[in-house]
């Protein structure tokens, strides 16, 4: 049953081939066996899941239930869930139980989806390997000595290991697309403002965006359908019509203009990854799309600009964790200053502290113009590169990341070596553009992702392109070796 895609589960539930309770029990049993290996979930909500599954079965029996009704999913532990701990991968929130549901959680529940639990992640979504989680790293189902990517590594591993057919995730600089690529699944970061950020713990508010992870583009379309749309509670959420993503999946590729940026195939790109991506581009060409060489001349400035803007916003956002209203509080504070300083020193891990300090530095008196203001100007240049490109092409394609999954500890203590793993994903966040990753090959038996970047609010076209690719190829069906040993 766990090998079914989300769409197949939805069909099976609608036909009453199996009940949501049966499906949920099956996946919970699988999680119980597999989670000690992968560490994909930080919280498993067995009782809650079964209660939701029972309610979904009642709704399904009545007829006319929406497609996600009764489908078990997982939420990244960055989304607030009422009554169920939301840790954000941090000691700071190890004891935090939100008094409300995030909009994404609320919408998925309204659609009838069953929450299996909360997935592991890099602390406060700051990382590309899941090694910064307070709860220990997630292991990549394709190679348990390798990272799953990050920050949404738990969601990616859960989907890849068939513990859930789909999961929610967030992407600030590649946190959906990079782990999707490294775990061989499909992950979509929507246009900034497409999905509400309300109740999603903020890292960098002008970059953060929630999106779906699943095995196929069709499944991602079903999940996005439930997540997307205007929410008055998020002041940056945009009020634009939400198209029917599933209905749009069958658009043909003939005549589609695909931009291939030279900058995404330069030094530092793994030759095996390059070959797999080139082969995928050739498949699009075979189906009638036209490849167009384009330039994104400011690409090399994306990572430096991001590491000013994201830490600056993080330093402001994370100032709310003070040991007074919720979260970790140090023992025996001597005075108020000691309370703040020790609670934060104990509650945050090394990478989070580093980013808060870098952000504080970039915003401090005398440095604001040199760093923050400069980075915001560069951000406009990067966005302009894309606007110029989209005057000529419909979609942009290239690798999602420069290398397949790397071993734990491979980046040593060098933060910049880790940051450069996001070299192809960060620009879409700075520009606010939608981007997705689909599996397009294997290198050393580890998955490679093809990145598809679209114009603003063009998710339907991107998903359709990914869907047509998955109709013609079977990379998305490849399974990690050893999954059968997980049991059930």
């Amino acid at each position: 049953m766990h090998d079914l895609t989300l769409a197949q589960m939805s069909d099976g539930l609608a036909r009453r081939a199996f009940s949501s309770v049966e499906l949920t029990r099956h996946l919970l049993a699988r999680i119980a066996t597999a989670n000690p290996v992968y560490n994909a979930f930080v919280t498993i909500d067995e009782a809650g899941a079964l209660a939701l599954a029972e309610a979904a079965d009642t709704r399904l029996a009545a007829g006319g239930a929406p497609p996600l009704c009764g489908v078990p999913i997982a939420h990244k532990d960055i989304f607030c869930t009422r009554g169920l701990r939301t840790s954000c991968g941090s000691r700071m929130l190890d004891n935090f139980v939100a008094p409300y549901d995030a909009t994404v959680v609320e919408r998925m529940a309204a659609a009838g989806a069953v929450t299996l639990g909360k997935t592991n992640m890099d602390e406060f979504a700051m990382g590309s390997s899941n090694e910064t989680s307070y709860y220990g790293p997630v292991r990549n189902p394709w190679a348990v000595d390798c990272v799953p990517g990050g920050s949404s590594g738990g969601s990616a591993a859960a989907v890849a290991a068939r513990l859930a057919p789909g999961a929610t995730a967030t992407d600030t600089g590649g946190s959906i697309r990079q782990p999707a690529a490294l775990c061989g699944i499909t992950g979509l970061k929507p246009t900034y403002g497409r999905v509400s950020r309300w109740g999603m713990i903020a890292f960098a508010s002008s970059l953060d965006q929630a999106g779906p992870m699943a095995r196929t583009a069709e499944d991602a379309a079903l999940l996005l359908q439930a997540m997307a749309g205007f929410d008055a509670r998020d002041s940056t959420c945009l009020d634009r019509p939400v198209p029917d993503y599933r209905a749009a999946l069958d658009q043909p590729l003939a005549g589609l203009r695909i931009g291939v940026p030279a900058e995404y195939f330069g030094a530092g790109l793994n030759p095996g990854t390059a070959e797999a991506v080139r082969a995928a581009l050739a498949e699009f060409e075979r189906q009638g799309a036209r490849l167009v060489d384009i330039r994104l001349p400011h690409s090399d400035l994306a990572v430096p600009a991001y590491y000013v803007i994201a830490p600056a916003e993080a330093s402001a956002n994370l100032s709310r964790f003070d040991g007074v209203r919720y979260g970790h509080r140090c023992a025996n504070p001597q005075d108020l200053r000691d309370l703040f300083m020790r609670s934060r020193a104990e509650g945050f891990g090394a990478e989070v502290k580093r980013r808060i300090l870098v952000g504080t530095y970039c915003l401090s008196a005398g440095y604001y113009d040199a760093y923050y203001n400069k980075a915001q100007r560069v951000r406009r240049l990067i966005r302009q590169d894309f606007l110029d490109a989209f005057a000529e092409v419909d979609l942009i394609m290239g690798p999602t990341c420069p290398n397949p999954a790397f071993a734990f500890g491979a980046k040593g203590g060098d933060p910049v070596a880790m940051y450069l793993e996001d070299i192809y994903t960060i620009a879409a966040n700075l520009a606010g553009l939608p981007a997705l990753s689909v599996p397009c090959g294997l290198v050393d038996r580890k998955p490679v992702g093809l990145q598809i970047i679209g114009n603003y609010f063009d998710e339907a076209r991107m998903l359709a392109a990914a869907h047509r690719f998955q109709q013609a190829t079977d990379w998305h069906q490849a399974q990690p070796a050893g999954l059968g040993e997980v049991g059930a």
Partner: protein
Amino acid sequence: MAIQRADIEKLCFLARIDLTEETAADTAAGINRVLELIDQLRAADTEGVAPLAHPLEETQRLRDDQISEAVDREALQAIAPAVESGLYLVPKVIE
């Protein structure tokens, strides 16, 4: 430009993060690596380019000044480390 131990101490105070003796050197080294990275921005020609704060250049939406939700103080304070009579407790500020 590399920052020194004294700068790190100042930053840690501004960010309200206690700096421990054991981690001070690593903290400085890590931050200096990131500063080397972001210093690459200096070479970018941004003459006449306006800063971009919102990727779609949308302005903040305003809502009507009306009560939209009730605040359940008890539920919100149930997760606080220390509360008494509806007030958050912190160490004494004024002697």
